[in-house]
């Protein structure tokens, strides 16, 4: 496969193994650009990319903007605060207004699951899902998989554990779909109250006991405890969560000796992960951030190309 034959990237559930591999290969080839003294290539000159964020974000938004700028595209950032969204302009009208200004691609984050899918039907431009509600966050899972590939050579055959709040986590859902398609064994572990109701329909093995879940794993992906959602009595206390499901050095000995520790950020140090693990030898958390830029460059490139065939040597 050499091209992505789709208008939008909304989730990994609907994506094929070949498409995921193409994105990872393309992203890998762009890491070289990130290490150059002058990080700029001209390919997306004249393309306009809009980041439309209805939820807060530092890394995802910056990562997309940087990816677009490295490829010479122009970016426009729209967020709830300070825009006409606060005057009550609907999601649909906001999209149509921005499309009329000539946006070629929208990067959308929204608290409602399915919002980017709705947007993709409204606009002719491409849409990339940068996180929708509790549904998917495909670019995060792709950068996680790229990080795994770089460290382990391949994904197939690996045991990957995702720990924490699976229910509210779009990162977990995208990772579960992506990793299982690429041939990994996906384990999940967390309080039963934070597992989604549809868990038996997902291609995962569920563990209640973290020590058993960690047995012989190649990768641990530690999810953020979303403190803003934790006032509804999902678990008795932060301290109890940390005792039962926090990743620390002693626990990590049960995993393989070359285990990778990943975290999508932002981290709650001392709750889901101890600082010595977060900054330790197994952590690849900053590599994940760097890979995020490469993955987003790959998606922009693959989605914005033409569709004919031109021969020129």
């Amino acid at each position, binding site marked *: 496969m050499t091209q992505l034959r789709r208008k939008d990237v909304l989730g990994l559930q609907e994506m094929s193994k070949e498409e995921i591999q193409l994105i990872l290969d393309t992203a890998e080839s762009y890491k070289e650009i990130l290490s*150059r003294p002058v990080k700029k290539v001209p390919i997306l000159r004249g393309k306009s990319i809009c980041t439309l964020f209805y939820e807060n974000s530092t890394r995802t938004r910056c990562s997309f903007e940087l990816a677009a700028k490295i490829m010479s595209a122009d970016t426009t950032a729209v967020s709830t605060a300070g825009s006409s969204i606060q005057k009550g302009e609907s999601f649909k009208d906001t999209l149509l207004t921005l499309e009329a200004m000539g946006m070629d691609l929208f990067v959308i984050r929204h608290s409602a699951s399915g919002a980017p899918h709705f947007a993709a039907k409204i606009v002719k431009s491409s849409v990339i899902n940068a996180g929708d509600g509790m549904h998917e966050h495909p670019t995060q899972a792709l950068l996680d998989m790229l990080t795994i590939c770089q460290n382990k050579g391949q994904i197939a055959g690996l045991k990957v554990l995702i720990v924490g709040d699976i229910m509210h986590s779009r990162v977990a859902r995208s990772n579960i779909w992506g990793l299982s398609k690429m041939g990994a064994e996906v384990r999940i572990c967390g309080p039963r109250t934070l597992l989604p109701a549809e868990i038996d329909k997902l291609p995962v093995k569920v563990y209640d006991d973290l020590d058993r879940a960690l047995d012989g794993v190649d990768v641990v992906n530690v999810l953020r405890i979303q403190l803003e959602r934790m006032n509804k009595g999902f678990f008795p206390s932060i301290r109890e969560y940390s005792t039962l499901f926090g990743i620390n050095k002693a626990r990590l000995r049960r995993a393989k000796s070359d285990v990778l520790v990943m975290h999508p950020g932002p981290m709650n140090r001392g709750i889901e992960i101890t600082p010595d693990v977060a900054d330790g030898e197994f952590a690849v958390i900053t590599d994940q951030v760097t890979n995020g830029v490469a993955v987003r460059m790959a998606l922009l490139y693959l989605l914005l190309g*033409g569709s004919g065939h031109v021969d020129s*040597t």
Partner: protein
Amino acid sequence: MGPVRLRRCFVNANVHRDSTVNAAFLLTHGQEGFFVRDGAMSTQVTQVMDESEIRRALTRIAHEIIERNKGVQNLVIVGIQSRGVPMAQRLAKLISDIEGAQVPVGSLNVALYRDDFDKHPARTISASDIPFDVTDKRVVLVDEVLYTGRTTRAALDALMDLGRPAVVQLAVLIDRGHRELPIRADYVGKNLPTSRKERVDVHWVETHGEDAVLIVK
């Protein structure tokens, strides 16, 4: 010589650049011009260079490069991906054999510098692999076929983003004419006047299992 029906696996006149017709197969049948039938389409394949002609051309180019650059001091060879890479490696080996000194070889991905992105689907090839600093080097860019000159233009821009070479020269196996930009090669294996309707396919042992240059009509 009448039209000959080939086995299905050989026939795909719609494949744009990658001719799957094997020149060795044509030679064993002793044919200069050869018709491949594919449904309503008819394709004529003519071999214009064989293994020994390619070898002689590359050897001559290697000598010319050494002569023009007065040796191999600061000389590097850069193949344009993907088709210029086997030729770059061959030239580097020939030059190293003649001069008794290693010449560094790199490969350049020009996909992000093309001018046909809006017409062409995005295509992925491997990352540029330039294991040396190009600044102040004498760079010989290598591609198999020089046609419109647009790939060479993209390669020049890609190269300049990596550093400031002292000199950039261009070596090609085939110059088929029809330039759309003011670009010319410094070293040419063979000048091959062609029609725009024709296609020039270069086969390398490394990628196709044989060395040959074919014109496909």
